[in-house]
């Protein structure tokens, strides 16, 4: 099995290439140096403590959290019914709507950001906060539509007909039968939507203002001006937070034990 040896080596190489750089982030986060050195000359947690006490980082984090949760909530509220309709009630316009609802994925984020700034804020007179939230919600809506849609596609229609014939109203069918059976899809959509909003840069790049700067943008700005381990510390905290979020969402919404 020479070919297996070759493919296995390629896999290890790819995984190393994908994962190893993060170890650098983690090591540098514990640096005691004043500027960025690798490997650090000595270790401490002072940069980790320092970023957690830096006002602008904390306020950016709060902005990003609100933005992520808000965008995710909007995407689910609009996206889940749409995904259901696309799956269950095919009408002639379905394909067009499906394309529309997933189109934010193929439009460059920068373009969305610039367009929103121009049309929504400068010409429309809306606040930057609102434009930012709208942009992020549009950006992550496709995840809700796609992931929940895929989950719905695996739910046989007979099951809904059965509930219906047993006396359930359409709303009862949806709440009691459909939703509990797409919990895995909802969990995945929530994770994808939130993490993508939380980490996203291009849409937010132009939509900043006094008191409104997302954490990734703040990190970018900081990197341009100073060369110290605080970004490593922040990156590590963000990575840890993302992983905890994925874990908790999976626990709360659960990937179904009965499937």
């Amino acid at each position, binding site marked *: 099995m020479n070919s297996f040896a070759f493919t296995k080596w390629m896999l290890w190489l790819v995984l190393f290439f994908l994962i190893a750089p993060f170890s650098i982030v983690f090591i540098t986060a514990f640096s005691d140096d004043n500027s960025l050195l690798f490997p650090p000359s000595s270790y401490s947690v002072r940069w980790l403590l320092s970023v957690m006490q830096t006002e602008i980082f904390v306020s950016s984090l709060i902005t990003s959290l609100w933005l992520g949760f808000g965008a995710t909530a909007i995407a689910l509220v609009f996206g889940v019914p749409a995904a259901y309709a696309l799956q269950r009630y095919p009408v002639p316009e379905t394909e067009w709507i499906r394309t529309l609802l997933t189109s934010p994925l193929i439009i460059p984020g920068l373009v969305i950001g610039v367009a929103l700034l121009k049309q929504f804020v400068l010409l429309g007179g809306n606040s930057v906060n609102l434009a930012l939230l709208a942009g992020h919600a549009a950006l992550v809506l496709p995840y809700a539509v796609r992931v929940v849609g895929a989950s719905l596609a695996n739910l*046989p229609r*007979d*099951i809904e*007909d*059965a*509930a*219906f*014939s*047993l*006396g*359930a*109203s359409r709303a*009862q069918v949806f709440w*009691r*039968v459909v939703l*509990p*059976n797409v919990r895995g899809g909802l969990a995945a959509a929530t994770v994808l939507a939130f993490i993508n909003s939380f980490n996203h840069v291009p849409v937010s790049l132009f939509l900043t203002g006094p008191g409104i700067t997302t954490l990734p943008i703040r990190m970018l700005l900081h990197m341009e001006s100073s060369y110290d381990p605080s970004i490593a510390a922040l990156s590590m905290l963000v990575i840890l937070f993302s992983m905890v979020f994925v874990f908790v969402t999976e626990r709360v919404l659960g990937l*179904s034990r*009965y*499937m």
Partner: protein
Amino acid sequence: MKTALTLEQLTLAYTKNLTTVENLNLTVPEGELLALLGPSGCGKTTTMRAVAGLLEPKSGRIALHDRDITRVPANKRDIGLVFQSYALFPHLTAFENVAFGLRLRGVQKAELEQRVNAALETVALLEFAKRFPAQLSGGQQQRVALARAFVIRPQLMLLDEPLSNLDARLRLEMRVEIRRLQKQLGVTMLYVTHDQAEALALSDRVAIMNAGQIEQLATPEVIYTQPRTVFAARFVGFDTILPVQPLERRVRIGKHEFPYSLESRFNRAAWRAEHVRLGTGVWAARVLARSFEGQQVQYQLESELGVIQAAVPSATAVWKEQDSVTFDLPLEQAVWLVE
């Protein structure tokens, strides 16, 4: 006897697979088990979905007892549905699956528990109440689906190919089980199937459907012995169907004429394989294939009339492949048809 279900001039268009049902009339008396028998695409499932309220009829009327339900939504019809795919709720236990309809009806806790447990006991699944569908076998899942449908005390039960996903042995067991249940509960049942043996075995009456029409509606005995159309005859196992020409006190089949008085409207004759007599008669054939089936031996013959299926008791089945043999098609056992 009171009528449970009435279909009057029912016309259905099912756009997806293009089976249309036109001007269908059917009445099912209370307590009867009526089978809708036909090949896939004959309109039987379309009809069933319309009765269940999952498909809106184009025209016509559906009545349950004396209540017109043509425009009543499925969730207000009081009809118990059993699907080929079982359609159990994957996120609920067997108990909760059965309790689903009762909870929606606001049945109080004590009564609910008593009724659900009784239903599970009826289908011999009480000890599996806490299991999820994925932890049950196919047969058990089908029994949960049955219990879930009858526990709401429906005025009518609809079963759509309920046994098709089960293996052959289980299918025979469940046939008996469903019949027993239906008698015990006294519930009216409409049973959709493509399996003629199943339809004949468990129903009071069988409706043979073809191309959106009922071709024949009769008891299993009548359907089995006296099919009225070529389609019905072929469907219930009349393998040999030949064109015949009635003459005065004679009948012409192929190049032979036989003395027989036959109404002039008939132009086809049909025989089952076991009607065909081997080793005697005017027809000559060659044995193409021979298969031993225990009690009898099935022969495939190549003859001047085309390929003929014949079944002979094993004790007398002396012919081998390639043997020449004569055979007889006894006119007194023929079923006469019009095409």
